[in-house]
C-alpha cells in the first residue's frame, strides 16, 4: 500500500524518458492496479449499506481475489490491448512502465504483491506495515508514521529536484509533443493553462496530500512515528 508514490513516480520516469513516453497512460498505469479495488478494500456506505470486502487483504492482493492487478502480467495484458487493440505502441509501453512501477513499489509493504502471477508467491520487502484492513483513517495514520511515508517523501524531493519537468516549457516540448493527439484535442476545451493544471495535478495531489496527512496524523491526532523496519508496530500489520 502506497499513498503518494503512485502520484509522484510518473514525474521521475518522465524526467529520464522525455519524449519517449506519453504521460497520460504512464499515470493511468501507475493508478491502474488500485483503480477498481481500493474503495472496496476500505469500504463505502451507500443507501444505508456498507460495501466492503470480507477479507480486504485477500481481495486487494491475494488470489482468489484481485491481487493479479498487482502483477507484471497485468501490465503486459493491458499494455498489449492499448498497443494492438487501440493501435498505440506509445500508450501501451507507457502504461506498462507506470503499471510495473506500481506493482514493484507495493512490494515494499508487509503483504507484498504477486509480481510473477500466475505464480501466487507474494514478493515483499516488508519495509512498512500494510494496514488497509484496519480502514482508511488507521491505514493513513500508520502509513504516514512509518517508512512508507518516508518513501513517498523521497519521491517528493526527487520531484522537486527535477522541477523542470513541471514547467510550461517542458510541457510544450516533451509532454505535448510526445502525445499531441490527446493534448491537442483537450486544448480545444481548456486551453494551455488548463492543460498545465491537469499535467501537474498528480504531483500537486501527491505532495499536498502527503503534507496534509502528515499534519493530520502527527499534529491533529499525535500518532507516534515508528520508522523501524516493518513499522509502525502499534498497528496490526497484515501479512499474506
Amino acid at each position, binding site marked *: 500500500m502506497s499513498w503518494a508514490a503512485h502520484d509522484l513516480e510518473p514525474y521521475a520516469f518522465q524526467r529520464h524518458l522525455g519524449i519517449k513516453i506519453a504521460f497520460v497512460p504512464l499515470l493511468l498505469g501507475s493508478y491502474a492496479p488500485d483503480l477498481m479495488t481500493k474503495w472496496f478494500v476500505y469500504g463505502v456506505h451507500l443507501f444505508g449499506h456498507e460495501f466492503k470486502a470480507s477479507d480486504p487483504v485477500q481481495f486487494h492482493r491475494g488470489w482468489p481475489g484481485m491481487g493479479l492487478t498487482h502483477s507484471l502480467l497485468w501490465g503486459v495484458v493491458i499494455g498489449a490491448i492499448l498497443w494492438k487493440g487501440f493501435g498505440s505502441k506509445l500508450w501501451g509501453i507507457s502504461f506498462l512502465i507506470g503499471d510495473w512501477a506500481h506493482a514493484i513499489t507495493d512490494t515494499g509493504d508487509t503483504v507484498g504483491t504477486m509480481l510473477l502471477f500466475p505464480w501466487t508467491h507474494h514478493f515483499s520487502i516488508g519495509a512498512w506495515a500494510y494496514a488497509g484492513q484496519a480502514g482508511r483513517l488507521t491505514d493513513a495514520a500508520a502509513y504516514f508514521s512509518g517508512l512508507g511515508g518516508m518513501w513517498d517523501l523521497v519521491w517528493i524531493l526527487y520531484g522537486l529536484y527535477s522541477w523542470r519537468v513541471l514547467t510550461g516549457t517542458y510541457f510544450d516540448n516533451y509532454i505535448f509533443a510526445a502525445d499531441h493527439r490527446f493534448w491537442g484535442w483537450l486544448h480545444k476545451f*481548456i*486551453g494551455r*493553462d488548463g492543460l498545465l493544471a491537469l499535467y*501537474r*495535478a498528480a504531483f*500537486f*495531489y501527491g*505532495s*499536498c496530500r502527503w503534507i*496534509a496527512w502528515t499534519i493530520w496524523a502527527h499534529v491533529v491526532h499525535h500518532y507516534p512515528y515508528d520508522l523501524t523496519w516493518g513499522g509502525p508496530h502499534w498497528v496490526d500489520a497484515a501479512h499474506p
Partner: protein
Amino acid sequence: MRLRPLGRDSGWTLVVWGTAAGVYIAIGVFFVDFMLSVFVAMGYLLIVTWLVPATVRRLR
C-alpha cells in the same frame, strides 16, 4: 551558479500555485474526504489555477 530572479509571470504562477496548495492542505487536514481522489484535485486545480484567473482577466 547564480539564480536568476523570477520574471513577473513566473512569480505570479508561483503565488497562484502556492496559494492553491496551502488552501488544499488546510481543507484536507480538517476534511480528509477532500483528499480522497485525484479527480477532485484535478477539478480543484482547474478551477483555482485556470478558471478563476481566466475569469478575472476577462472581467478586467
